[in-house]
């Protein structure tokens, strides 16, 4: 290779490597802020600030959803299968909200450990399948657990 081109190639590669290292260090330093939400374990460990706008994400615990009879208010537990956090929300929930599904709740964590949410978003997983396949899978699972 021509020495001049070689030098330019090295300069170009140095630019790419240096900028990658810079960005890697910045994102590493800010990793806590890049996470969209706190997990229930982090909340339990006291990592989430109290009385400030935060997000908590995890699975809605099966059987934990309680709806008020006279208001829209809903109370449910969010878990990461280690710890769980109680969330209350007074508003319309997204269509995909259900027990056993993922959610991300934005709100304030009270001193009593309950999050009063101002917004609840549904977090769905990466699985896509036709309803018949989902039914067949469920049936197979049910049979498997009976035996």
């Amino acid at each position, binding site marked *: 290779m021509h020495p001049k081109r070689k030098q*330019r*190639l090295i300069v170009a590669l140095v630019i790419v490597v240096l900028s990658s290292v810079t*960005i890697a260090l910045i994102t590493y330093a800010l990793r806590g802020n890049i996470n*969209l939400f706190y997990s229930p374990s982090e909340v339990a460990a006291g990592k989430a600030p109290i009385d400030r706008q935060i997000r908590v994400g995890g699975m809605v615990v099966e059987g934990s959803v309680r709806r008020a009879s006279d208001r829209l208010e809903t109370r449910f537990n969010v878990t990461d299968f280690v710890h769980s956090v109680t969330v209350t929300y007074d508003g319309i929930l997204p269509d995909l909200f259900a027990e056993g599904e993922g959610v991300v709740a934005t709100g304030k964590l009270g001193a009593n450990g309950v999050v009063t949410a101002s917004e609840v*978003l549904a977090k769905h*997983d990466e699985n896509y399948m*036709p309803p018949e396949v989902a039914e067949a899978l469920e049936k197979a699972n049910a049979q498997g657990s009976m035996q």
Partner: protein
Amino acid sequence: MWRIIHQFGSPPWVYRFCDKVIPWLMPITIGALLVGSVWGLLFAPTDYKQGDSYRIIYIHVPAAVVALAGYYVMALAGLVSLVWRVKLADTAMRAAAPIGAAYTAIALITGAIWGKPTWGAWWVWDARITSMLILFFLYVGVIALFEAYENKTVAARACAILSLVGTVNIPIIYKSVDWWYSLHQPASIKFTGSSAIDASMLYPLLGMIITFYALFALLMMLNLKQSLTEEYAQSAWLNKRLAA
């Protein structure tokens, strides 16, 4: 092998190559877009959880995949222009930028439309979506930076450096859903192991991804031809070709 690579640096050869490929690539791409859309939007089964709203995946994912790949095309052209000073590489870099910006915009807009019914929000500042927005700004930045300079050789060099620096963002976008907690779900199509998307939905999706790649190539060639016609308007080879 070097001969083939050198041919790609020759404007008359590339112009002729585009002229040869476009007439059959265009009908194939348009046909595949129609077949893929109809297959995905009408014939693919509904999703067990999202119902019909998931069908936007057939536009959203192909646009996003090719937006990322297109950036590497632009950055590679930038590298060639920077190191080997091939003028055609500048033209290719500039040709890729608006196409990539359009793909990124489509991915962001369809993502917002999909997010509203499924997540409950048009926009969330999570790592995937924010890094995708940065990709859009990088593409637009390359276009704007080129226009900002009077001297086009300097402009091309600045654009090449910007596109090279921006390559940092591509692995970040790709891995963002695994590295951080995000609202966006992880990838459904996996290169190793079985995909998290049923085969009956996966095949039209793969078809659409290939079609979007073909569309990128087609738009790139049309763009290149247009730029070459402007750049070499005074050249004998072009006038001879246009007269024929």
